[in-house]
């Protein structure tokens, strides 16, 4: 059941991204920015948590889920440390993801070479 709901929720979020990609002239970078900010906003408004409860990874894996993790982390840190938590919480919660992106990104870029037209 978890897998089905993950599939449905994740697929729906990606399909929404596809509509943006095809129907507007938004570049992928701009779409990613929209999705991560939307994730933060929806979490702040309390609207994303139910989607996470239902979809599990289907809500957490898309970039909206990254925004969700950022917002939740900020809230948790504010609960624990007050105002300064707003600054530290988001990055702390997503630290593993950011570090992984930096490290694996660098290593892969060093080892491999880009392939041109196939």
């Amino acid at each position, binding site marked *: 059941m978890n897998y089905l709901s993950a599939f449905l929720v994740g697929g729906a979020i990606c399909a929404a991204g*596809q509509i943006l990609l095809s129907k507007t002239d938004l570049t992928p970078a701009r779409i*990613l920015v929209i999705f991560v900010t939307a994730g933060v906003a929806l979490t702040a408004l309390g609207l994303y948590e139910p989607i996470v409860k239902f979809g599990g990874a289907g809500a957490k894996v898309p970039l909206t889920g990254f*925004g969700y993790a950022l917002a939740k982390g900020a809230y948790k840190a504010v609960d624990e440390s007050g105002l300064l938590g707003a600054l530290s919480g988001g990055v702390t919660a997503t630290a593993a993801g*950011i570090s*992984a992106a930096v490290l*694996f990104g*660098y290593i*892969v870029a060093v080892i491999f070479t880009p392939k041109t037209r196939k």
Partner: protein
Amino acid sequence: MDIKKSVDDTNYLQYVKNAAPKSPLLKECVMAFIAGGLICVLGEALDDLGKCILGFGEEGADSFRTTVLIFLGAIFTGFGVYDLLGRVAGAGSIVPITGFANSVVAPALEFKWEGYVLGVGAKLFTIAGPVLVYGISSSVIAGVIYYIIKVL
């Protein structure tokens, strides 16, 4: 011959918009749905692996899943197959966190010949940078608003 005169009447740009070859939206959305959905299913499996077999808590499992997916996105980009997925799946390859990894590795790979500091190092964030800027900034703002509401 003044092309603007003969073309203004026919509203060239509007004509171009209507006549431009379009990609089949429904097919693309379906492909994005399936590809994105499957990546999320993989994420769900990693969650289960993290919680049930490796004994992580909620947060640990989140970090584990994110790390593994980023690794996979990076390595598939390195092997030159992630863009093949993108050709088929469109947003289904861009929106999941694997797409974030792809957007980190792809420009870094490209600019290797410009050196490891200003080439690879700097270019890691040409596309992913804005994501971090807007994501982190909005989470800070959300945190501040949350604090203000709590205090009031």
